[in-house]
C-alpha cells in the first residue's frame, strides 16, 4: 500500500499557497484543505484492514549507508494518530480561515500548518527509526515557524525559540537514543525493534537508551521539568495552539512512549522514570493551571497536566493503563482542541484573554459558551462526556499499583488531588468567563463569531458527547486497534461503560468533583497563598539562562581570542614544539652512525659571523635600520655557506633574494617607525625567549640527528638521468625545470600572484611620509646624485648581459631563469634608485602585469606543448643540433620554461618595486623645502 501518499498529500498542500496567487481566502482554505481531506479519505479506505489487526507497510531504500529507509507502517496506533492529525487538522484549517485577519498572510500560515501536518504524519507512520527522527525534528522546525507566526511580537519570537531549544535538545537526545536502540537490535526498522524488546531490555546500554528516549518524549510532551516552553508557545495564533498543543505536537512525545512501549516498558526503571514524571507533571500542571489569568495559559497548564496523566498511565506498566492512556489521548485531543478554539473565539471576539476582565460572556455568545462549557466539563471529567471515561479508567489503574511497595497508596491519592484541581480549573474556565458578573474594560463588545468558525468546535464537542455516551460504538474498535498496537497485540479485557458500579474509582471521581468545587469556592484564599510565592516567568528564566550562557561564552571567547597575534603565534609554536619534541624523547642517540665532516676555522668563523649577526638582528630589532644591516650580514653568510657546502645555485639565489628583500624592506621602512620603544614585559620576554630557545634547540637537534644519519635517497636517479633524460649537466636546474618542473610552475605562479596581491595592496594605500629622518633631520636635497646616476645607467647593459648569460647557462651550470630575473630586476631597480620614477616613466613602458602573465603562460604552454606529442604535461624535449661554422648546440624545451620563469620574476619584482616607488612621487615636492608637515601620499584609487 502506498502509505507514503498520506504524508505526501499535506506536503503538496503546503506548496499550494505558493501558487495560489491572489485567490480569495475561502478558496485558498478550501484548496489547501483538499490535500489532507484526500489523505483522510485515502486513509479511511484502508482503515478497516487496520482495525482488523493488520499492519500495513511500505518501504524503499533511501540512504542505506545510515540505515535510513523510506519506510511507513500503519497499525492501530498510527491510525489513531493519523485520524487525530488529519481530522483536527482539517478543522483547524477551517477555523483558521476565520481566525486570521485580512492583513495576515494566510497562505504562509497554511504552508507552515501543512508542513507541520506532514511531519506529524511522518512520525506516526514511520517504520524506520531514523525516518521517525527526521519527521520528529521537522515538527520542531515547523512548530517554530508556527509559534513565531506573529513574528513582530517579542513574545512570539521568544516563545518559539524556547520551544525550539527545548524540543531541539530533546530531539538530539532522542537521536542518540534511537541510534543506540538501532544498534542493539542491529537494524533501524521499527518492526525489528518492537519484536526485540527483550533483547533491548537485556542490553547494558538499555538505561542510557531509555533515558535518551524519554528525554526526547518528555521535552516534546512538556513533561516536568521541561514543561515550561508550552505556556509560552501560547503566543502562537490560537489555531496553532488548538492543533499543536492539544492534539498533535505535544502528543508526539506521548506517541513515542506508546510506540516504544512494547520494546522499552515493563522495567522498574521505566515505571519510576515515566510514571513519576507523569505524576509530578499531572499535579504541577493542574495546580498551576488554576492560577492562570490568561485563558490560553490555563489551557496550556491543563494540557501539561493531562499529558502528565497520560504519561503516568503509560508508566504504570499495566496493560489496562496503556489502554486508558490511549483512550485519554483521544479524549484529551477532542476536548482540548475544542477548548482552544473556543478560547480563540473569545479572544477573537472580545479582544482579551484575561479572565479577570472576561466575565459574563454567556450573555454575549451563548452558543460558544455552551460548547466551551461542555468541553470544559469533559476536561473536568464530568460523566456522560468522554473525559470522564478515561479519567475513571485512570483512577482505577492508579489503584492497581504495587511497585512503590508500601507507598503505593500515594499514587491514587495524588491522582485524586490532581483530579480535584482539574475540576477546579475547569470550573474556573466556565464560571469565570461566562458568568461572574459583567465584562471589565474589554477592547471590543463580544459577540458570536462567524457561523463557520464555530463548526469545528461543534464537531469536536459532538465527538466528546458521542464518545462519552456511546463509547463502544464510536471508539471501541479504534481504541482496540490502537491499544493492541501499543501492547503488541496482547489486549486486556476491558469495557467502555459509563457505569461500572459504585466502586473506588467512582468514589475518587466524586472526591475529585467535591474537592474541585471546594477548591474553586475557596480560590481567593488559594490565590493569596499562591501570590506569596515569587512568580517565576519561565520565559525570563530561560532567556536569562540563554543570555547568561551567551555572556559566559563571550567571556570565554574574549579570554581565548583576545585579538593578540602574539598569543596566537605563541600557541601555534608552542604546540609545534610539543609535537616535535615529544617523539625526540624516544631518540636515544642524537648522533647517528654517519661519519661527520671535520670542523675547520672557516666554518667556525662563518658560524660566529652568522650567530653574531643573527643575535644582533634580534638585539637591534627595535632600531630597525641597524637590524636590517645585520640581517643583510646573516643573509650574506647563509649564501656563502651554501657556496661552501657545494650548492652554487643556492648561493646565487639566496644572495639575489636577500639583496632584493633588503631593498624592499628599506622601501617599507621609510613609511614605518624607524625605532620602537620597549614594549614587552620581562615576563613575556622570558616566556618568548624560553620558547624560542626550546624550538631552536629542538630544530637544531633534529637537524643534527638527520645529518649524522645515513640517507638512502632517490637522488641517484637524478644524477644518472639528468644528462640523458633532461639534457642538462646542472642537476639542480634539471630538477627545477624538468624532474620537478611542476613545483617551479607553481612557484612562479606564487610569485606572480604575490605581485598582483601587492599591487592590490598598494592601490588605494594612503601613507604619511616622514619629512625627515628619525633624528628630525630634513632629507638631503640631492635627489639623484650625478655619479650614481651615471654609473648606474652604464652598468645596466652589463647587468643585462650577465642576466642573459646566467639565464642561458642555467641548464648546464649554476644559474637559471630565476636568478637571471632577479639580476635584471635589481639592475632596473638600480635605475629607479639612481634616476627616480619620473625619469624612467617616460623612457620605459613595460606592462609588468602582462610580463608576469606572459611568463607564466609561456611556462605553462611549454608544459602543455607535450600534449601535442601525446605525452604528459611538462614532458621535456631536447636535442643537439649542428650548424656549419657555429658548431654543436642544444635546444631544449626547458629553456623556454626557464624563459617563462625569467619573465615572471622580472615582471613580479618590477610590478612590486616600481609601483611601490610611485607611491611617493607625486607628493614629494610638497615638503622639499624641509619642514613641511607630514603629507599624505595617495596612489590612484583602486578600481577594477
Amino acid at each position, binding site marked *: 500500500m502506498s502509505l507514503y501518499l498520506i504524508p505526501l498529500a499535506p506536503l503538496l498542500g503546503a506548496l499550494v499557497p505558493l501558487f495560489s496567487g491572489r485567490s480569495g481566502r475561502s478558496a485558498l482554505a478550501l484548496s489547501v484543505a483538499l490535500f489532507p481531506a484526500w489523505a483522510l479519505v485515502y486513509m479511511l479506505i484502508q482503515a478497516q484492514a487496520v482495525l482488523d489487526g493488520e499492519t500495513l507497510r511500505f518501504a524503499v531504500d533511501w540512504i542505506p*549507508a545510515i540505515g535510513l529507509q523510506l519506510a511507513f507502517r500503519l497499525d492501530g496506533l498510527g491510525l489513531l494518530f493519523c485520524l487525530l492529525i488529519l481530522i483536527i487538522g482539517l478543522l483547524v484549517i477551517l477555523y483558521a480561515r476565520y481566525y486570521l485577519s485580512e492583513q495576515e498572510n494566510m497562505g504562509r500560515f497554511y504552508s507552515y500548518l501543512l508542513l507541520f501536518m506532514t511531519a506529524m504524519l511522518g512520525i506516526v507512520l514511520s517504520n524506520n527509526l531514523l525516518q521517525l527522527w527526521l519527521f520528529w525534528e521537522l515538527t520542531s522546525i515547523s512548530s517554530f515557524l508556527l509559534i513565531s507566526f506573529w513574528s513582530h511580537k517579542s513574545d512570539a519570537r521568544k516563545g518559539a525559540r524556547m520551544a525550539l531549544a527545548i524540543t531541539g535538545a530533546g530531539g538530539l537526545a532522542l537521536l542518540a537514543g534511537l541510534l543506540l536502540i538501532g544498534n542493539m537490535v542491529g537494524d533501524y526498522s521499527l518492526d525489528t525493534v518492537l519484536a526485540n524488546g527483550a533483547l533491548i531490555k537485556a542490553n547494558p546500554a538499555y538505561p542510557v537508551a531509555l533515558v535518551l528516549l524519554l528525554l526526547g518524549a518528555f521535552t516534546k510532551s512538556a513533561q516536568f521539568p521541561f514543561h515550561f516552553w508550552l505556556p509560552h508557545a501560547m503566543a502562537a495564533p490560537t489555531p496553532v495552539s488548538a492543533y499543536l498543543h492539544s492534539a498533535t505536537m505535544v502528543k508526539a512525545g506521548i506517541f513515542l512512549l506508546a510506540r516504544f512501549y512494547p520494546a522499552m516498558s515493563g522495567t522498574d526503571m521505566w515505571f519510576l522514570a515515566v510514571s513519576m514524571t507523569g505524576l509530578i507533571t499531572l499535579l504541577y500542571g493542574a495546580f498551576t493551571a488554576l492560577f492562570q489569568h490568561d485563558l490560553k495559559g490555563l489551557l496550556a497548564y491543563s494540557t501539561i497536566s493531562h499529558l502528565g496523566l497520560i504519561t503516568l498511565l503509560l508508566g504504570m506498566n499495566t496493560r489496562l493503563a496503556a489502554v486508558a492512556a490511549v483512550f485519554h489521548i483521544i479524549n484529551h485531543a477532542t476536548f482540548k482542541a475544542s477548548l482552544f478554539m473556543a478560547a480563540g473565539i473569545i479572544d477573537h471576539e472580545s479582544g482579551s484573554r484575561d479572565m479577570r476582565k472576561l466575565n459574563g460572556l454567556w450573555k454575549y455568545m451563548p452558543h460558544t459558551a455552551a460548547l466551551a462549557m461542555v468541553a470544559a466539563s469533559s476536561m473536568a471529567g464530568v460523566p456522560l462526556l468522554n473525559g470522564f471515561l478515561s479519567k475513571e479508567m485512570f483512577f482505577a489503574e492508579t489503584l492497581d499499583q504495587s511497585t512503590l511497595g508500601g507507598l503505593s497508596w500515594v499514587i491514587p491519592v495524588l491522582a485524586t488531588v490532581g483530579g480535584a484541581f482539574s475540576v477546579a480549573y475547569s470550573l474556573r474556565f466556565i464560571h469565570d468567563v461566562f458568568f461572574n458578573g459583567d465584562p471589565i474594560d474589554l477592547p471590543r463588545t463580544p459577540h458570536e463569531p462567524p457561523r463557520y468558525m464555530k463548526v469545528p468546535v461543534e464537531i469536536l464537542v459532538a465527538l466528546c458527547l458521542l464518545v462519552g455516551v456511546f463509547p463502544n460504538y464510536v471508539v471501541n474498535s479504534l481504541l482496540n486497534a490502537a491499544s493492541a498496537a501499543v501492547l503488541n497485540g496482547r489486549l486486556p479485557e476491558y469495557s467502555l461503560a459509563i457505569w461500572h458500579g459504585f466502586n473506588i474509582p467512582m468514589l475518587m471521581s466524586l472526591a475529585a468533583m467535591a474537592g474541585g468545587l471546594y477548591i474553586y469556592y475557596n480560590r481567593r484564599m488559594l490565590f493569596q497563598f499562591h501570590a506569596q510565592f515569587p512568580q517565576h516567568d519561565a520565559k525570563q528564566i530561560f532567556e536569562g539562562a540563554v543570555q547568561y550562557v551567551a555572556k559566559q561564552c563571550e567571556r570565554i571567547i574574549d579570554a581565548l581570542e583576545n585579538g593578540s597575534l602574539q598569543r596566537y603565534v605563541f600557541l601555534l609554536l608552542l604546540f609545534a614544539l610539543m609535537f616535535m619534541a615529544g617523539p625526540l624523547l624516544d631518540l636515544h642517540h642524537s648522533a647517528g652512525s654517519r661519519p661527520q665532516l671535520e670542523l675547520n676555522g672557516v666554518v667556525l668563523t662563518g658560524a660566529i659571523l652568522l650567530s653574531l649577526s643573527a643575535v644582533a638582528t634580534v638585539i637591534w630589532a627595535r632600531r630597525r635600520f641597524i637590524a636590517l644591516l645585520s640581517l643583510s650580514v646573516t643573509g650574506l653568510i647563509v649564501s656563502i655557506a651554501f657556496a661552501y657546502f657545494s650548492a652554487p645555485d643556492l648561493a646565487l639565489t639566496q644572495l639575489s633574494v636577500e639583496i632584493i628583500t633588503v631593498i624592499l624592506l628599506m622601501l617599507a621602512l621609510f613609511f614605518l617607525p624607524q625605532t620602537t620603544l620597549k614594549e614587552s614585559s620581562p615576563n613575556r620576554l622570558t616566556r618568548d625567549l624560553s620558547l624560542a630557545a626550546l624550538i631552536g634547540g629542538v630544530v637544531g637537534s633534529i637537524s643534527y640527528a638527520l645529518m649524522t644519519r645515513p640517507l*638512502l635517497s632517490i637522488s641517484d636517479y637524478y644524477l644518472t638521468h639528468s644528462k640523458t633524460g633532461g639534457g642538462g649537466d646542472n642537476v639542480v636546474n634539471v630538477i627545477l625545470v624538468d624532474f620537478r618542473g611542476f613545483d617551479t610552475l607553481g612557484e612562479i605562479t606564487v610569485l606572480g600572484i604575490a605581485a598582483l*596581491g601587492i599591487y592590490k595592496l598598494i592601490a588605494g594605500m594612503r601613507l604619511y611620509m616622514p619629512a625627515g629622518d628619525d633624528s628630525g633631520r630634513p632629507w638631503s636635497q640631492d635627489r639623484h646624485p650625478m655619479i650614481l646616476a651615471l654609473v648606474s645607467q652604464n652598468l645596466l647593459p652589463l647587468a643585462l648581459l650577465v642576466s642573459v648569460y646566467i639565464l642561458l647557462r642555467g641548464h648546464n651550470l649554476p644559474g637559471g631563469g630565476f636568478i637571471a630575473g632577479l639580476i635584471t630586476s635589481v639592475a632596473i631597480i638600480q635605475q629607479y634608485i639612481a634616476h627616480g620614477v619620473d625619469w624612467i616613466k617616460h623612457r620605459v613602458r613595460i606592462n609588468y602585469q602582462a610580463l608576469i602573465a606572459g611568463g607564466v603562460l609561456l611556462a605553462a604552454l611549454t608544459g602543455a606543448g607535450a600534449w601535442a606529442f601525446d605525452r604528459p604535461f611538462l614532458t621535456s624535449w631536447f636535442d643537439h643540433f649542428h650548424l656549419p661554422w657555429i658548431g654543436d648546440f642544444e635546444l631544449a624545451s626547458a629553456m623556454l620554461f626557464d624563459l617563462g620563469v625569467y619573465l615572471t620574476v622580472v615582471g613580479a619584482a618590477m610590478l612590486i618595486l616600481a609601483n611601490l616607488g610611485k607611491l611617493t612621487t607625486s607628493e614629494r615636492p610638497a615638503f622639499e623645502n624641509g619642514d613641511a608637515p607630514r603629507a599624505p601620499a595617495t596612489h590612484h584609487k583602486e578600481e577594477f
Partner: protein
Amino acid sequence: MMQHLPILPIVIPLLAGVLLLLPPLCHSLPRQRFIAVAVNLALIVTAVMLLQRTHLEGALTYALGDWPSPFGIVLVADRISALLTLLTSLLGLGALLYACAGDDKNGMYFHPLFMFQLMGVNGAFLTGDIFNLFVFFEVLLIASYALLIHGGGKQKTRAAVHYVIINLVGSCLFLFALGTLYGVLGTLNIADMAAKATLLGPDEQPLAKAGGLLLLAVFGLKAALLPFYFWLPRSYSSASAPVAALFAIMTKVGAYSILRIHTTIFGAGAGALAEIATPWLQPLALLTLIIGSIGALASPSLRTLTANLTLVSMGILLTAIALQRADATAAALYYTIHTTLVTGALFLLADMIGRQRGKAEDRFVASRRMQRPVALGVAFIIAAVAATGAPPLSGFVGKVLLLQATEGAVETSLIWPIVLISGLAAIIALSRAGSSLFWRHSEDAPVAEPTPALRIIAVYLLLAASPLLVVFGGPITEFTDAAATQLHDSAALSGMMQQGGS
C-alpha cells in the same frame, strides 16, 4: 585529452587566470566574468568526468614530465580527490556568480585571483607528492591573501595581517617537517614515503614521527584545529562575501591533507608509526568543536556565527578523521560536501542580509526591514536547518554517519554528547540569529539599493545541494564509502602510485 584528465583541474584555472591578465581580457569586466564562469563550468564538467572515471577505474595517476614515480611528481586522482575537486568547483561557481553581481569590481584582479585560488585548491587535492603539496598550499595561500584584502578597508587589513603572519609561520613549520621527513625517508612521493616509513629502524622512527606530527600542526593550522584556529573568525568574517564563501573550502584542504598524510604514510600499516596523530588530533578536534560552539553562542553577527559554525564543522570533520577508520572517513567526506556548500551559502547570505539592513549590517540587533525578506528568509531557514544538522537536510545525514561511525567505540561516551550538544548550541544560536535578523524591525525604510537576482541565484544554487544531498543520499554515500575504502586500502593505492605512468 582523456588521459590528461587529472591535470586539467589545475591547468585550466591556471591558464584562465593568466589569460585574464592579458589583453584583450584584462580590460573588460564583462568578458572576464563570462570567461570566469565558463571556466568554472568547464571545471565542473572536468571534475564530473574525473569522478566518473575514478568511480569506474579507481585511482588515476598522472606522471608529470613522464618521469616514473617516485622520481617525478605524480598527480593521484582517487575518488576522494575527484570528489573534492568537484566540490571546489561547485562552491566556486556559487561564489563566482555572487561576485559577478558586483563584488568583483571593488578591487583589481578578482577573477584571475579567483582562478589561481581554484588552481591551488585543486592542486592540493590532486597531488601525490608532498613537496608539491607544499607548493600548492602556497599557491592557494597567496591567492587567499590577495583575495582577503579584496575590497579594502581597515577590518580586512587587520585580519590579513594576522592571517598572513600565522600562515607564514605555518609555512616555515611545513618546510621543517618536509626537511625532517625527507632527511629520514629520502623521498617525496607520498606513496613511496609510506613504503619507506615501514622500513625505518628504531633510530629513525622518532624523527619521522616528529616530522609527521609537525605536519599535523601545519595542516591543523589550515584546518582551523584548536589551538591553531585563531586566524579564522576574524579572517572569515572580514573577507568580502564571495571570498569568505570560497574560503569554506580552504579549511577542508587542511583536513584533507591530514587525512591523506596521516592515513597513507602514518596509517594503520605504518607499524611503529601507525596513527601517531590520533592521540593529539582526537582531543583537539573535540575541543575545536566545543570552542566553535561556544563561539557560535557568543557571536554578535551572522558572519561571525558562520565563521564559528565553520569551526564546529571542522571539529566534527577532524573528529571523524582522527578515528582513522573507513566508515568514519566516509562520514567525514559526506559531511565535507555538506558543510562546505552550506557554509559558503551562509557567508553569501550574511552579506546579502547585511546589505539590506543598513547600518545594523548582519549584527543581531533591530534594524530596518529587509527588501527581500521572503527570498532571504527561506534561504536562511534552509541554511540554518542544514547547518544545525537537523533533518530533513544534509546536515543530519552527516551527523548520523559520524555518530554511527563512533558507535560502539570507546569514544562514544565522549564524542556523542559533544557532537549532539554542539548541535543544540547551533540551534540556539541560529534561531536567535534568525529571529533577530528577520523579525526585529525598526521603523526605518528599507535600504533602496536593489539586490541583484544573481546574488540570490548564487545562494540558492549552493543551498540546493543540501536537499539534493539527502534525496540522492543513497548513491552519494555509496560513493563516499567507496572513496574512504579506497583511501584506507593503502596497499592498493601504493601499488597504483608506484606503478607510475598514466
